[in-house]
């Protein structure tokens, strides 16, 4: 009986809700389209890296955080508590704000998990177990080093034809790059003019994943980089890859 009353009330609410609130605000989304050679990225499919190595990806996953929407008057709306996990097997459509109003000229976002959430000594640090299991920052996403607590910013895993014989399935031709640590946290900023008019705004950006390997020859450089901190011998390799981020992300479109 109580459920039925609740249902009736809910229906009435839905009716009243139409057109409720200020007319000009929009919902803002960020949609990250993972691509390779300009097409939607397919896992376990042959691609050529920018420096000419035959590669396949089996896992691509990275965090997006510290988003700011930049207004025409240079004011910024910052979303310090929004964390998103982009994954090669998801749609990667992220709600930034339920209702925002104004004229904007750009967006900025960080790649990885900023130190406010990733530094166990930081005053803002929240232990990973405090996040619900479906939260982007839950260790359930396997983007977390549990023996040395901290978040993995990005996982790039797959195969690379390092023997350059055109065959990808040979032993030892796998690669696995796990990035992390505050020195590897980078921002992407893109100009794009948009004005909220009530309709949803989906800011789209393509991420051309093989471009992470621009000037990074998997035959001569590390194929497996799993640094445990920024002084680790693998870290310079991770930094090289992360520093290609600007070549990975394209311009914003709707």
């Amino acid at each position, binding site marked *: 009986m*109580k*459920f039925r*009353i*609740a249902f009736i*009330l*809910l229906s*009435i*609410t839905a009716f*009243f*809700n139409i*057109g*409720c*609130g200020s007319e000009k605000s929009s919902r803002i989304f960020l949609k990250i389209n993972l691509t390779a050679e300009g097409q939607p990225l397919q896992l376990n499919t042959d691609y050529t890296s920018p420096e000419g190595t035959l590669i396949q990806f089996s896992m691509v996953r990275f965090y997006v955080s510290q988003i700011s929407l930049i207004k025409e008057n240079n004011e910024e709306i910052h979303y310090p508590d929004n964390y998103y996990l982009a994954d090669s097997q998801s749609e990667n459509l992220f709600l930034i704000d339920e209702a925002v109003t104004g004229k904007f000229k750009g967006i900025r976002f960080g790649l990885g998990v900023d130190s406010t959430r990733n530094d*166990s000594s930081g005053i803002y640090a929240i*232990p*990973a*177990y*405090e*996040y*619900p*299991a*479906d939260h982007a920052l*839950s*260790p*359930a996403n*396997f983007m*977390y080093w*549990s*023996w*040395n*607590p901290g978040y993995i910013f990005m996982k790039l895993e797959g195969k690379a034809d390092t023997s350059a014989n055109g065959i990808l399935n040979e032993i030892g031709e796998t690669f696995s790059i796990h990035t992390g640590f505050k020195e590897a946290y980078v921002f992407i900023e893109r100009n794009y003019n948009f004005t909220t008019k009530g309709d949803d705004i989906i800011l789209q950006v393509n991420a051309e994943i093989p471009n992470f390997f621009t000037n990074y020859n998997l035959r001569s450089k590390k194929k497996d980089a799993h*640094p*445990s*901190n920024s*002084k*680790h*011998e693998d*870290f310079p390799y991770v930094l090289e890859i992360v520093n290609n981020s600007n070549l990975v992300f394209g311009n914003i479109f709707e």
Partner: protein
Amino acid sequence: MGTFLNSIRCLLNKFLIYIIGVSLFSIACKENIKKRETPYILDIPDAFPEMPIPSHNPLTVEKVELGRKLFFDPILSVDSTISCASCHIPQIAFADHEPQAKGIHGKIGMRNTPTLYNIGYAPYLFMEGKVPDLETQVIAPVQHEEEMGLNLRDLLKRLEKHPYYKKQFQLAFGEKPTPGNFVRALACFERTLISGNSSYDQYINGDTNALTAQQKLGMELFFSERLQCSKCHGGFNFTNYGFENIGLYVHYEDIGLARATADTNDIGKFKVPTLRNISITYPYMHNGSLQTLNDVIEFYNEGGKKNPNKSSLIKPLKLSEAEKKALISFLESLTEEQAYTKYLQP
């Protein structure tokens, strides 16, 4: 005019949402089991200090009971074959006899399983000491593909469906299983694992007959300036929780602390292990490479291998055969034989 109507509509709308919220809440409450917080009193030996308990996770009987159940339940592993107790076996002082831990599908991990007795006193966990508390530690074995290999998300789904856990999580936390209350329950149980009633403890508590003459000699050696064992294995739990390289190898395959710090000065340093219950937790060292206490004493007697990071405390000891036997016999007095029984199923 339009905006006036609009704001009335919105106000009404907020009111209705409130009513729905309240009515749904009362429905939910009827089905709830009431949370209980019966304080759990730790049985701390006289010579032990107070155990530090985090304020966000006070010990309660309900949480400890839930944690105990979880600890022994293979539901925590992907193929339901391995529980925490598969490696941390109560009868073996919550350690095991494998050189290196054996997880799901017989996968061999990189390290020897340590005892969990008195783990509530450890200021940090694992051999690199980078895990700050027991709550944080729980995630590691559950999700580790060489240990239990289960995604936290899938684990919570299992627990939600399980009649006992469904009820006990409500009782202990007043909510359904979440990562936060799951780790808190296990941590509570682990804090109850205390061992401090060995022959040695009885001796220092005044029972002069609790140790044999040989053990007393061994004790003197252990605490002596000549052997310096207690410089590292000192205090009520026979560890100072420092990080030391004892020269087990010239070249360490497992680089220990340096894994976390990437500092070459830390290669081969491991957290000093407790020596309580040591006679039953063989084999020894981070990789289980020394089989018996005899092997360990022979190792220390020789003064360890050449290694730039070796502690200056480790040097040849020139022990006589009688002294070696006495030392082993003393180490054996640190074992509390029946301590585990109170942690098994009631």
